């Protein structure tokens, strides 16, 4: 029977949620919930937490995040070309190879910028 594979994926997803959902909702249902400031304190090895928890951000690795966005796009384009590589004549892949080569230079410069710790 040819069932649409996407429907099968949806069924699988529903099964996962149906099976794992109770693992979280049931314990919440039967666990004791009385607000207790000491028990609900964030874990800091017994110390009383001080200051804002959410604001120590490391700017140092921000360039890698930018590079990730760029190469995410590149990767997706390369996959779209890669599927039909063997069916295409080799000449038509020249542009894709040029595409990869062109991105080499900015990658090098971005790495140089990112690795220089004085910049961040």
């Amino acid at each position: 029977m040819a069932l649409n594979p996407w429907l099968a994926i949806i069924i699988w997803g529903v099964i996962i949620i149906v099976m794992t959902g109770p693992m979280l909702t049931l314990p919440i249902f039967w666990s004791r919930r009385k607000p207790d400031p000491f028990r609900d304190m964030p874990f800091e090895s017994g110390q009383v937490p001080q200051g804002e928890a959410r604001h120590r951000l490391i700017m140092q690795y921000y360039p890698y995040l930018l590079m990730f966005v760029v190469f995410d796009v590149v990767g997706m384009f390369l996959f779209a070309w890669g599927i039909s590589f063997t069916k295409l004549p080799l000449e038509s892949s020249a542009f894709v190879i040029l595409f990869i080569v062109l991105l080499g230079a900015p990658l090098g410069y971005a790495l140089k910028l990112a690795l220089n710790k004085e910049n961040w």
Partner: protein
Amino acid sequence: MVVFPPTTPAELVALVIRIITSHTFITVVVFPGFIHLTVVVIFLTWYERKLLARIQLRIGPLYAGGPGGLFQPLADGVKLIFKEVMIPYKASKPLFLGIPVLLVFLSALPFAVIPFGQHWVIANIDVGLVFVFAMTSLFPSMILLFAWASNSKYPFLGGLRSLFQQVAYEIPMWISTLSIVLLAGSLNLVDIVRAQQKIWFIVPAFLSFVVFFISIMAELERLPFDLPEAEPELVAGWYTEASGAIFMLIFMGLYMKLYLMSSLVTVLFLGGWWGPTILPQPVWFILKSLIVATFIIIPRGVYPRIRVDMLIKIGWTRLLIIALANVFLTIILIGTGFMTAWGI
């Protein structure tokens, strides 16, 4: 005869039998779906404990818990389910409770496209490989959000480390599989395995196997890349605040991801279900995946961890360059007709 909607009890029974014996139901619920996945995840927790105990000569895990320690995972599960679900002060409730379920969901969903045998696959879609990558690419944001939601310092630091680490190794992982796509000419995982009937892709694409393996070690936050959960520095990394059922779900999600990645290695490089016909196809597949998982687990007992800036530097300067170079190598190999000699 199956009628919908059923009117008599006999028709209802016929319909139920029809549904239960349908291929979709069996693949979703029994194998390679829910039951198989649960059993393997429980097995993997037991297996990792035993293996590390052998490597590091830890006495406790070798004896604790019934015959061969098999009851230990069950006891853990029961304990975690009946523990209280603690939500830290000022934590973001919907994110803190929702993301563990989503983590399990995201690591279990890609199993729909992993072929455990020629017909043992839930959904045979044409974009299988990209589907797996799209799902795994959601992990960094989930982890960052969970770390942010717990409103605590250690999880937040661990979450940031995890974000940068996964982001740094995702691109080498994708680019290294590009040479597999070039060789097989398809993104469909069933077709990729079929193309390996004569020769496993680990032979023509050994370099990309190395890059892929190192990348998944980093993606899974396994030693020597387990900085996000470095115990001496960050307690338990991004899931420090997780307790009880939340911890159990995260744990399940992580082990499922371990199994997912090892089965992906099997599909892409180790010939999937192919093997001598003395054993059925799924057995070969599971065997290969477990061997890969062993090689992912072993370094945890052997290696120290490296520093976070070194880690990110290796990902971007070494692995990405090697992966890109490997793409060119594969193009040359295919272009010169070297591959056709091997029947690929």
